[in-house]
């Protein structure tokens, strides 16, 4: 694997696909995905329910082995769970018996069985960055859904992963919280650049957050379209009222609703 293109691409998927059921009559969940993600790029994936977006994400994380093609990170094939990947799930999935700080520290406790004083300091710093410092001692059920999900993001950042995989992380939140947490995520990402793969159902959210939006087809899921989002950063709530934003979301909608016309 040589060549400048390879060196620049951080995550590379070549002809990646997955079939859950070995029976060849059932459709594959994902097939023929070719994708290069640059380092510190923010990529959003949109597509209908059940199109294999989550499957794609799990293959990149190493939780799931592709049944066809190959995933490489920095040129090395992914053949098992990687600890340079942070995952944020649809639900915050915090542990109800641990307070917020301990939840954030959980990945260390779970992986190594312990954490140091330094780690605690890092957890507190991350919590402060997410505006949660005053909630460090609270239990998860004392927090709103939006705050819980923010803790989920902070937890994913604890091990300082290079790649952040987010599986519809805001879909369980109400519209206003959702918008706010999107801006919070952008702020966190700008302060701690990561390569992000962000799965969402929301077209506006995808355009607002990402450098690039990928559109996936129905099952078997494959990449249909790719939209470069050239909106300037940092993006704020004023971005939403810019004509370019409306233009891009409209174009994305066209890709989704009339894939042939676009």
């Amino acid at each position, binding site marked *: 694997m040589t060549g400048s293109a390879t060196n620049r691409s951080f995550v590379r998927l070549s002809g990646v696909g997955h079939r859950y059921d070995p029976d060849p009559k059932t459709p594959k969940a994902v097939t023929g995905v070719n994708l290069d993600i640059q380092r510190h790029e923010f990529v959003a994936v949109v597509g209908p329910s059940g199109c294999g977006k989550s499957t794609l994400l799990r293959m990149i994380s190493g939780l799931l082995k592709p049944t066809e093609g190959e995933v490489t990170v920095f040129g090395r094939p992914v053949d098992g769970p990687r600890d340079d990947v942070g995952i944020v799930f649809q639900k915050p999935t915090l542990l109800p018996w641990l307070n917020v700080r301990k939840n954030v520290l959980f990945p260390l406790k*779970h992986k190594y069985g312990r954490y140091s004083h330094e780690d605690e300091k890092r957890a507190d710093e991350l919590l402060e960055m997410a505006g949660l410092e005053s909630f460090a001692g609270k239990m998860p059920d004392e927090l709103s859904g939006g705050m819980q999900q923010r803790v989920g993001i902070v937890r994913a950042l604890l091990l300082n992963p290079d790649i952040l995989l987010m599986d519809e992380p805001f879909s369980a939140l109400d519209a206003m919280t959702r918008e706010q947490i999107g801006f919070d995520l952008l702020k966190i990402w700008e302060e701690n650049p990561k390569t992000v793969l962000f799965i969402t159902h929301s077209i506006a959210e995808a355009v607002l957050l990402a450098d690039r939006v990928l559109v996936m087809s129905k099952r078997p899921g494959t990449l249909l379209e790719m939209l470069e989002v050239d909106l300037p950063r940092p993006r704020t709530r004023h971005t939403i009222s810019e004509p370019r934003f409306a233009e891009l979301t409209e174009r994305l909608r066209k890709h989704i609703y009339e894939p042939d016309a676009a």
Partner: protein
Amino acid sequence: MSLTLPDPKARRLLLAAAPWLFFVGLILLWELVCRVFSLPEYVLPAPSAIIDAFFKVEFSRWMTHLWATLRVALMGFLVSIVVAIPIAIAMMRSELLTRTLYPLLVVIQSTPVVAVAPLIIVLMGSDDPSRVLITCLLTFFPLVVSTATGINETPAELIELSRSLDAPTRRETWQIRIPYAIPHIFTGLRVAITLAIIGAVVAEFVAAEEGLGYFIQFSTSFFRIPQAFAGLFFLAVVSLLLFKSVQWTQQIFFPWSLPKK
């Protein structure tokens, strides 16, 4: 239909007092029925007669019988905790084990313990071990089922989180699955503690020289019905207290595991 009281304080007071008022009312009604119809004591003793009978029995005798029942019930309860929880964990790890053991567990659960108890006594003698075994046969199954249910209800995302961290299975079990099972384990424990008392009493009915179950049976056979009732109520109170202690244990040590109001 809801009762509307202008004062929320009075409403709260009524809600708190209602079960007690009902209980006291019921006892008074019982007393009244016994007196009005002058029912003989061996048919239905009046509450006052039962209270009388209770205090006629020496305190030390009550304690002897209580201790005999409590000892067996608690030992059975503890033994089934120690056995059931590891089995549930092992079953979660191995589908083969689940398939192998589950039918046997169901057979044990669906066999009436009362019918098996005499056979166990014949087989093992009429000492504590056989009584504890009889108790375990009752308490074991709900504990295995509740623990296994709880362990399986761990959110898939957390298991993925654990896998993505490449953490050892031991930690996945101890740091995620078992704590997640705690609310379910306590549901099982609450069922099991009352079943433990039932088990101990069943064992005493078959063969015993002491214990509250033995006391009730003995009193009945001598037509000391008020005394039998006194033993029954004592047993009910003990059982209730044990049930409550399980609840308190959960409230004190695992407050997060309680359902939110």
